[in-house]
């Protein structure tokens, strides 16, 4: 197995680890940092793939992702947290250990699903698809379990990370146009979320969705 494949597998493992960490983390600031780390790993893996397959447009993609997910979005989120003063995520519906077990089950399932695909992938780093899928599941789970708007959005962003990871690892990335479009959507999404979170805060004086949802019709 060529060295850079090992590197990529390594990064993939890290990626998954971070996903797990996010699932268990309740302090929002740490959550954001973890998100940034995940973004970093993503950027790295993209550039490695670019190096390994000599596709220069992937460098651009790596740079774009790095810029977006390590700098821009985390900064925005941090500012948001500071202004809205939400430090902690209240205890989620399900206890952390249970969540961990669920996550484990999902990971196994993800590998089970992606195994046949990995078999017939002609790309070098085919095992990583399972990782990507697993991390997608985990982020989805996070979205389900978290009760503040902000951590839900972070879950959403992590989900999107997983998607990009899948794209790069199995298909050497989409064409540049698409990558740009996706990146654009992400940034717009975050901005819109910013707008909303202010209004939600104003209306319910909390970002805890349970306050919003308790309102009866």
């Amino acid at each position: 197995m060529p060295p850079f494949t090992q590197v990529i597998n390594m990064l993939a493992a890290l990626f998954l680890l971070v996903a797990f960490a996010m699932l268990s983390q309740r302090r929002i600031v740490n959550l954001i940092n973890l998100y940034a780390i995940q973004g970093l790993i993503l950027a790295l893996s993209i550039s490695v793939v670019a190096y390994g397959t000599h596709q220069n447009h992937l460098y651009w993609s790596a740079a774009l992702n790095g810029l977006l997910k390590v700098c821009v979005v985390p900064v925005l989120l941090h500012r948001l947290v500071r202004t809205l003063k939400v430090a902690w995520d209240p205890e989620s519906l399900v206890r952390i250990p249970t969540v961990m077990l669920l996550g484990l089950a999902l990971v196994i399932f993800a590998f089970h699903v992606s195994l046949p695909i990995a078999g017939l992938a002609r790309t070098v780093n085919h095992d990583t698809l399972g990782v990507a899928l697993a991390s997608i599941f985990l982020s989805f789970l996070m979205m389900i379990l978290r009760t503040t708007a902000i951590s839900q959005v972070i879950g959403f962003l992590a989900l999107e990370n997983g998607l990009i990871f899948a794209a790069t690892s199995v298909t050497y990335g989409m064409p540049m146009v698409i990558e740009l479009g996706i990146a654009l959507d992400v940034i717009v999404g975050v901005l819109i979320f910013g707008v909303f979170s202010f209004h939600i805060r104003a209306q319910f004086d909390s970002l805890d969705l349970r306050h919003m949802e308790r309102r009866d019709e």
Partner: protein
Amino acid sequence: MSNMIFLGIVIVPLAGAACLGVLGDREAAFGINILFTLLTSLVAMAMTWHVIHAGSFFMAGLQFFINPFNIFLVDLTAFVTLTTAFFSRAYMRIERHTGRLNPARSKIYHAMYQLFSFTMLLALTTNNIGTLWIAMEGATLSTALLVGLYRTPASLEAAWKYFILCGAGIALALFGTIMMYFAAHTLLGPYAGLLWTRLDAVKTQLDPYIAGIAFVFLIVGYGTKVGLVPMHNWLPDAHAEGPTPISAILSGLLLNVALYAVVRFKVLASGALHDHWPGALMMGFGLTSTLVAAFSLARQRDIKRLFSYSSIEHMGLATFAFGMGGPLANFAALLHMTVHSLAKSSIFFSSGHVAQKSGTQDMTKMSGLLERNPGMGWSLLLGSLAILGVPPFGLFASEFLIVTAAIHQAPWSVPFLILGLVVAFAAIFQKVQGIVFGASQIPKALSPPSLIPAFVHLALVLLLGLYIPPILTAWYTDAARLLGV
């Protein structure tokens, strides 16, 4: 290449968005809005003309393509956005007078209105499944703002629901798209692998397993936007809490566009799998949606919520029909999409006015509409009769065809279909009857409501029930053939 001008179909609304982003707060914004939609529909007409004479064609390399399947959807979209623009001129003016629409919001509203139509037209015309995804995501984001326009707790909650649910759904759709690309790019190479036409050409060689997984992600993803049960829960809130013109285009157009996306991938998937289970999957989703929606109708009190559930029901029917496949069913589904979006938007026009007049959306507080506002009353009554599939309106024709096709291809499903139709009929008609008949509780409309759009739509639906123009028939038939089984 000559037909580059038709890119105007997407450029015009984009320009409109930019322009209104600046001037949106003026009184003239309403007019400008209409102007741009008018331009869009002019371009659409020109394009239609071209298709009729030159047949389907590509633009910008292979990035855009126009064929009988999407041309009528493009026309429909252009037309409904136009009529809705007219409606929103009258409607939002009143909203502005009541102060619910301050200048800032008006700016957002108009800009997003144009942006929304841009994304929809882009999604319809693009040949690139990546771009399709981006357009759908864009549609989500732009409408999220529109749904939350009024900033009331309810509207914020609705918008948030919409944002999160559709966002997650769309993300899944992206994964599905990636998988599809992954399945294809070894055959077609990195760039062509995203072009639907190319994919369609090689669909039989795609790896069945990957295609299957991809389709699962895609139907769950885009299905969320179609409003298929159980991913439908954003839909009623979004329709009920957003401004009425937005409800109209959500129900009338966005759902169609999403369904259009699903169908496109269904073609690929069923081609790759060499068997019918993508179709079966759609039939299952469609039937479930129809039944659940029909039974949920009975307990609604909010008029816009009621009709949004009926949208779920009808989308379910169309999905079911597409799932069945075959020329007749596809034909029926296409017809159903068309007439449903016309009828439903017309209903939202009238019910919006009704809600505005009576100051509430609670149907139990409305009655005797025919007494003092016969115009609204009749449009609402006829609209609901149309939506319930009562002849001579077009939905009768489409439902008639769907049922007959179902008898032919999936007899087991017919009892469920009939059950759904009957329950929906009972639920909706009982409520509408209570609104239009009886002694009047609703004050007379002072400013004349703009019901011309509503009646124009109804007239078209009526026409389609009695007589379908040959050209439309030709398109439908071609499209049905295009979609195959």
